[in-house]
């Protein structure tokens, strides 16, 4: 009951946060760049430029322009994407689905590896497996993703040829319908084993690359919080009851160690979104990040605004889930605010 109220309250606040975010981005865009830069060409006469400015309402005041943009968003019109030469709303769902697929795959890698490795290391504190895990985790946190992605690409694509780049094999991709836009799910829906294998095969390398940094963060947190929990009295009390070590670890220590780790997972997701831009560029992944990078380079403001809006929504939803998980794990937490 309490959790449901909290979710509703948070969802009601969500639009307000989004308006705030869009205001900041809108202002930065207008201050730092020219909204019609992407349509300008060297041969244009000043009259033609003025005509363009007039057409996009750039002669109105900034608040008027913002309201006009917001009105469009509410009607489901996010403007025209210059880089894709199509309305934003025509391109966005496909791009969003591709990014979601990649970042969820990366999150699965990061969460399962992070919690698994962290538990493994935390339960063997200061012994060899722990030291090795820490080396792995520290390198993960310290390696810049653009460099790591290129190295992964060179090793696994160029030399070993184990994994492909891109998102799919074009013919296989075209052979199934795409109702959701998420390739793996579409393949399952279509019942095509070939397409599913193709999807996974393309997904592994970018997902692991993208997930590495977050894996490192989660591993470190899980390791240290588990090692700390194992010193608590209730762990000894659980042992004194005659529980085997497996249950002491799983039911008692790990559950409490997950509490701080879950918080870090929420932050790690922001890390993933950020990294997805680089990974999508390097692995030729047709997602939001790549789209946004093109848009930034060419000054396509409608696309940038759409990107910011949707990544904000993603981030906020993930953190809402994290808060709920947190309250579920730690019963002392009273949700609010």
């Amino acid at each position, binding site marked *: 009951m309490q959790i449901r109220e909290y979710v509703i309250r948070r969802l009601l606040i969500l639009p307000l946060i989004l308006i705030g975010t869009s205001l900041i981005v809108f202002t930065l865009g207008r201050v730092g760049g020219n909204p019609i830069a992407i349509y300008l060409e060297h041969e244009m006469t000043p009259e033609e430029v003025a005509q363009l400015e007039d057409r996009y309402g750039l002669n109105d005041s900034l608040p008027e322009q913002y309201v006009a943009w917001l009105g469009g968003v509410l009607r489901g019109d996010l403007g025209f994407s210059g880089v894709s030469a199509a309305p934003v709303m025509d391109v966005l769902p496909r791009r969003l689905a591709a990014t979601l697929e990649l970042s969820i795959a990366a999150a699965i890698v990061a969460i399962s590896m992070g919690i698994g490795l962290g538990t493994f290391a935390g339960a063997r504190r200061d012994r060899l497996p722990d030291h090795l895990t820490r080396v792995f985790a520290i390198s993960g946190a310290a390696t810049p993703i653009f460099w790591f992605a290129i190295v992964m690409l060179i090793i696994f694509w160029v030399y070993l040829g184990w994994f492909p780049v891109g998102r799919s094999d074009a013919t296989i991709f075209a052979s199934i319908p795409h109702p959701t836009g998420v390739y793996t799910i579409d393949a399952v829906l279509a019942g095509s084993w070939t397409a599913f294998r193709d999807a996974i095969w393309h997904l592994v390398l970018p997902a692991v690359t993208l997930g590495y940094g977050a894996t490192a963060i989660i591993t470190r947190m899980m390791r240290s919080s588990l090692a700390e929990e194992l010193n*608590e*009295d*209730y762990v*000894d*009390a*659980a*042992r*004194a*009851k*005659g*529980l*085997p070590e497996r*249950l002491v670890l799983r*039911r*008692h220590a790990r*559950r*409490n160690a997950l*509490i701080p780790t879950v918080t870090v997972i929420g932050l790690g997701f922001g890390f993933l979104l950020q990294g997805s831009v680089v990974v999508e560029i390097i692995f030729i992944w047709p997602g939001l990040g790549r789209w946004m990078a093109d848009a930034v380079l060419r000054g396509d403001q409608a696309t940038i605004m759409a990107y910011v809006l949707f990544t904000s929504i993603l981030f906020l939803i993930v953190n809402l889930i994290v808060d709920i998980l947190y309250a579920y*794990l*730690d*019963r*002392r937490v009273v949700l609010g605010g």
Partner: protein
Amino acid sequence: MTAAAPATAGEKTAALVASVEDLRVHFELKAGVLHAVDGVSFDIADGETLGLVGETGCGKSVTARSFLRLIPTPPGRYAGGRIRFWPKEARQSGGEPVDLLQVPTSDMLDIRGNRIAMIFQDPGKALNPALPIREQVAEVFYQHRTEDLLEAWNGRAPRPIRRAASQRAGKLERLAFKFPPLRSQSKRLKRRVDELVGDALAETQIHNPRKIMASYPHELSGGMKQRVMIAQALACNPDLLIADEPTTALDVTIQARILELIRELQHAHQTSVLYISHDLSLVRRICDRIAVMYAGRIAEIGTTQQVFHDPRHPYTQGLLAAVPSFAHRRGELAAIEGTVPELIDPDPSCRFHTRCAFATDICGRVDPVLDGRVAGRPVACHGYASPEELGVAAAELPHLDRSPA
């Protein structure tokens, strides 16, 4: 070096629940080897309450935890000695004891919480904050009373239910419990566990066990939490209950009630108790016998009467002089001079010699032996030793009967 009980050897073993002999627990630290417990010996007789008293850091908790092998190794190490334990069956049929330091881990798991249970100092920390009380108490039954839980099935419980009753059900099985045909059986198992948990809680005078079962530890008071711990500890009728300062973290008003409860349940369950405390007045109220510990060793052992009215070891004498009572006038309390010695790589000596008013040269060179022959009961002090055995002149031994220097 065995602590002598006032009976002959044959009868003695029959009446004992546990016997600690020359227990040594060391910790390997960077600075050296810490001799936290350094040759501790005492017996616990069937049905008695033995108080293990000493100041913080004297090794009493380490001794207690050694019974259940709860010392983390490394850095800890059981460096010597043994803890013999006679489970009920062994006591009744004159069977062999087990050495708690040597039994295989699987046997140890069966002893923990079942034959020997433990109550911890701070119930707020000894309960898992993330699990409801029901789950925590239920674990004891799942772990040690599987057969009892499956009683209603008459030995024909399906495999997944049997596995669930001993906490071995996997994720898939737990999923299957949510659907027929296992659903009703799994519910029946849960109801049986609820029953046992409820009974165990009710026994500790918790009036609304159902409500408490659904609560999380942070929703309960300290006294209530300690009741839950006691219920959990006594759930399986253990032969020995180790209470490690169970009332230290509680309000004074609650302390008395918890103490009373432990004593009552001890009689009802016929459980022996090893009661660890630094609080002499408290130990005096509930213990039959007392072992005084100082710096990793036993100073003396005696009945409560003997220790309080006729303390033999200079440390005990000093300790009792520091306890306030109505006989003392304001400002008359005596503190023991000096501080507890470093226990890292200690040389042979009486650990108390630096603070002892009677100490002579030999106290700084030779380990005293816990010997009951001269003093009439086990006292580890050269003042009671025989000069012939030590090979020194009688004059070199401390004279306890003179007034302190």
